[in-house]
């Protein structure tokens, strides 16, 4: 322990006075740089876990008819491998990099909400531990990382593995949404003066765009997970066909999240490539606008095309056709990016140091991943290759070939900034070559295995011609990658202890993170250079030939809204996605009449009256805001109290409605109407409760603040949320109470 503290102190990562209590200082830190590093360390730890699982898979598959792992164990191992690598390795690593780099790149002193940041981070180890606790509770989930229903339902997976899986993903999902809201608020509200939105470095820009994707996609999964848990633990039948549910619905929900998820981890990788390749080619990025703009296109397209994961489900030719065409379109903006990176390198003075090596390999491998991706977009080929190792090879080329390589490039690139020490270039080259050779050995051959017909998710295979040696090659490659990981770990440890001093700007890079010391001081910058273009450090170093000034034509360029409102607005966008899924599920499951309780058993008049209370509460809250603006604090608090009372009356009405339904024998599992009704109104009621608590806190704050303006920002932010909860009820009320009576 004391050794570690000595290392940290030596690296400047713990001040002398912190040495005594350095663990506490790191655990309780709210500094974005330390949180970023904690994310990365957590990610590396889970990388070891997921990597060992990968090696177990490869060992089992090394020879035909192998008996190393039991079939069930094998299923658990590959489920945990997939879940771990995506949710506990890739996402935390990218959030960690974003956490460390974005505030520095935009010239901020920290994230917009440092404590939210710490909270979001600590959900990652908590969620990871929760997932692994399943092993002690009867066995890990064994249903694949997408947990297809009905396999993931109670009758088919009766031990609690899937419950732990769903709960931990919910926990991780909250953390991801929290971080992304924080990143959006940081980019919008914490930028240094003159760091306009169009001068953002590409990594920060892509993290900004990507954060929107996270807040839109993750709530879809969260809604699905909630429904799955209600099925499993409360006896509903959302995804169970025997009870009238739809297993396909789970696939729609999962892939509506799952496809954007691919881009959620890929876009930050694109950002890394866009930072590293220009610096090591000694040229500005070719076509900044195209790289930045194509990111927007990719983000939007990714939300549209999830059904291409479901060609083999039997949605019909018609549906397939639309998604074949739209999926292939994604090749256009990604192709624009690949061209821009390649053109950046053309004619540059390329320095092939470790970060650049990883990024060039990522570029080449991503090209191959893209080509197999386009081939899989053709439904006819997809039918043949879907459940084979061809698909396994394709998505590992995306996740490892692009994303892991980009993360490793980023780690080598920003490690000097994080620790003040250079990584060993010699060990870095060893890591790179072991990794590249190992990776390509493992996965190139899997394309051929897949085309030869080897199905995925089988624990073993017969000794068919060619399968044995190809699998052996793949396994050997996997161990080369493990060797690369060990060299990397050694490099990180040794360099932290005795690496060469990095200085402020070891790579002669141009973005603001290199304008401060390595590691940066607690508040990041003593002073900032002038920011007129996208490469402020180039301008400072070359006053004779600076980059062309990037103008401030739009008002939005210098847009810097209030941070609480920004965060709540972003949160509302995210919550809309969550409720949209629940409302759509309600409409879908209630399209046909069914035996048992139905919407016609509900009392429209009574609930309508209680709904009026809720709508009136929006009015009183607005009056409270108006009073605040006019400085009438007494009136403000009176209207605020009225809002709380009206909200409570509404909840009372909901309670009466529930009591009536329960008295008539309806339970959440009785039929699909009851399941959807209780789920939708229950989650809405939960949001009303949260809003009430927030309002009470604001009320208490205004009392504590005494005379003076109090905390106007808090009231405005909470009011925004409250109005949103009311607006959701307008839709829910129309869908549940009014729509059935229109028919």
């Amino acid at each position: 322990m004391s050794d570690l503290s000595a290392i940290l102190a030596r690296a400047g990562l713990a001040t002398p006075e912190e040495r005594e209590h350095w663990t506490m200082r790191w655990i309780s830190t709210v500094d974005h740089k330390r949180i970023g590093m904690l994310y990365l360390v957590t990610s590396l730890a889970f990388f070891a876990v997921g990597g060992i699982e990968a090696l177990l898979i490869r060992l089992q598959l090394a020879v035909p008819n192998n008996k190393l792992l039991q079939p069930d164990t094998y299923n658990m191992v590959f489920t945990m491998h997939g879940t771990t690598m995506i949710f506990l390795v890739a996402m935390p690593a990218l959030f960690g990099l974003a956490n460390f780099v974005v505030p520095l790149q935009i010239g901020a002193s920290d994230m917009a909400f440092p404590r939210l940041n710490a909270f979001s981070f600590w959900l990652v180890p908590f969620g990871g531990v929760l997932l692994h606790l399943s092993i002690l509770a009867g066995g890990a989930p064994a249903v694949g990382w997408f947990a297809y229903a009905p396999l993931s339902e109670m009758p088919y997976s009766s031990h609690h593995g899937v419950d732990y899986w769903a709960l931990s993903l919910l926990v991780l999902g909250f953390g991801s949404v929290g971080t992304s809201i924080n990143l959006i608020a940081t980019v919008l509200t914490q930028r240094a003066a003159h760091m306009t939105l169009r001068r953002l470095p590409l990594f920060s820009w892509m993290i900004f765009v990507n954060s929107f994707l996270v807040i839109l996609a993750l709530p879809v999964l969260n809604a699905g997970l909630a429904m799955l848990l209600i099925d499993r633990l409360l006896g509903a039948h959302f995804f169970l066909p025997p009870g009238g549910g739809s297993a396909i619905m789970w696939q729609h929900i999962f892939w509506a999240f799952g496809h954007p998820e691919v881009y959620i981890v890929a876009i930050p990788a694109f950002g890394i490539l866009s930072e590293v390749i220009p610096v090591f080619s000694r040229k500005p990025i070719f076509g900044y606008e195209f790289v930045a703009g194509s990111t927007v296109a990719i983000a939007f397209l990714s939300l549209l095309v999830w059904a291409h994961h479901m060609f083999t489900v039997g949605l019909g030719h018609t549906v397939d056709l639309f998604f074949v065409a739209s999926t292939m379109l994604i090749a256009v903006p990604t192709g624009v990016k690949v061209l821009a990176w390649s053109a950046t390198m053309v004619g540059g003075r390329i320095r092939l140091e470790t970060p650049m090596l990883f990024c060039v390999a990522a570029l080449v491998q991503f090209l191959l991943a893209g080509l197999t991706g386009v081939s899989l977009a053709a439904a006819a080929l997809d039918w043949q290759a879907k459940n084979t190792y061809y698909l396994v090879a394709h998505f590992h080329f995306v996740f490892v070939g692009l994303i892991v390589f980009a993360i490793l490039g980023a780690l080598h690139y920003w490690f000097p900034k994080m620790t003040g020490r250079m990584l060993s270039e010699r060990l870095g080259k060893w890591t790179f070559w072991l990794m590249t050779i190992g990776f390509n050995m493992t996965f190139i051959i899997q394309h051929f295995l897949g085309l030869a017909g080897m199905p995925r998710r089988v624990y073993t295979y017969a000794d068919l011609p060619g399968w044995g040696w190809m699998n052996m090659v793949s396994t050997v490659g996997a161990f080369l990658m493990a060797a690369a990981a060990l060299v990397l770990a050694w490099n990180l440890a040794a360099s932290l202890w005795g690496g060469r001093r990095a200085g402020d700007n070891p790579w002669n890079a141009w973005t603001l993170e290199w304008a401060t010391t390595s590691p940066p001081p607690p508040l990041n910058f003593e002073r900032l250079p002038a920011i007129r273009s996208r490469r402020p450090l180039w301008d400072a170093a070359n006053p004779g030939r600076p980059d062309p000034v990037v103008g401030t034509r739009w008002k939005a360029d210098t847009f810097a809204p209030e941070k609480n409102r920004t965060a709540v607005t972003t949160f509302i966008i995210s919550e809309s996605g969550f409720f949209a899924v629940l409302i759509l599920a309600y409409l879908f499951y209630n399209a046909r009449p069914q035996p048992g309780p139905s919407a016609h058993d509900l009392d429209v008049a009574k609930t309508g009256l209680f709904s009026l209370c809720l709508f009136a509460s929006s009015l009183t809250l607005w009056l409270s805001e108006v009073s605040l603006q006019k400085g009438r604090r007494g009136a403000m608090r009176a209207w605020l109290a009225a809002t709380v009372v009206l909200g409570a009356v509404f909840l009372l009405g909901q309670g009466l409605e529930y009591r009536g339904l329960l008295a008539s024998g309806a339970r959440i599992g009785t039929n699909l109407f009851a399941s959807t009704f209780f789920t939708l109104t229950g989650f809405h009621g939960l949001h009303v409760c949260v809003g009430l608590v927030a309002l009470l806190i604001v009320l208490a704050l205004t009392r504590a603040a005494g005379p003076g303006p109090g905390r106007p920002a808090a009231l405005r932010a909470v009011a925004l949320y409250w109005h949103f909860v009311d607006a959701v009820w307008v839709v829910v009320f129309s869908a549940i109470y009014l729509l059935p009576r229109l028919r």
Partner: protein
Amino acid sequence: MSTGQFLLEGWTWGGASLPVGAAALALYLAAFGFRRRLGYFAAAVGLALATFMSPVGTLADGYLFSAHMLQHIALLLVVPALALLGLPRAQSLALRPRAAGHPVVAWVAGVGAMWVWHAPALCNAAVTSGPVHALQTVSLLLLGALFWRPILAPREEERLPPPQAILYLFGACVACSVLGIILTLSPVTVCSVYAAPVDRLGLLHTLRDGWGMTPERDQQIGGLLMWVPMCFIYLSAIMAQVARWFAGAGSPEAREA
């Protein structure tokens, strides 16, 4: 009637379409004279005429929900956009009560037109009743123009800045996708007239057996048209906004503050 016959004979030459289209062009020429932007306006008129007079219009008239959806998308999204692009740059589109032009109102108009006309009762009425159909056409064109105004108004100062415009368009894309998803996945028929058409042209056999257009598949295609290609219209507009956002980057007006 076979497919070939239908493609030859399925055109509607009578009716009010041609005179109204010619009148629109004449009005444009009277107001603005001959100018290059006339091309956009002529394209708008041409597309509107095509949706009514071509076989697509015939199919939309009671036979196929999917054809109706094509017509709907063209009239709400494409024709008004082209018409706005056709206006001279100096033309102001300021609306009298300022609230009518507020982006929230315009957004609700554009998205609402999509949702309201697909309520089962209205969807059926628009097919079976002439006046309702005329009302639907006019309302789609007007509401579509209202929707596009904050994006495509001829004067720069009457348009939304790019970031807001992107949110505006993305919101519309999501709202239409949601309706498209409902139509595609709905286990019940949304617009029942198309499930049992009055076969006035003797075409039904060709559609059902020749083209394989069962009522279920027909509704599915209709929903998918709204879910996917319609969103691409919004997405193209979003990319145009991204281009507009980055276009001014290195312009000389940019002086360091």
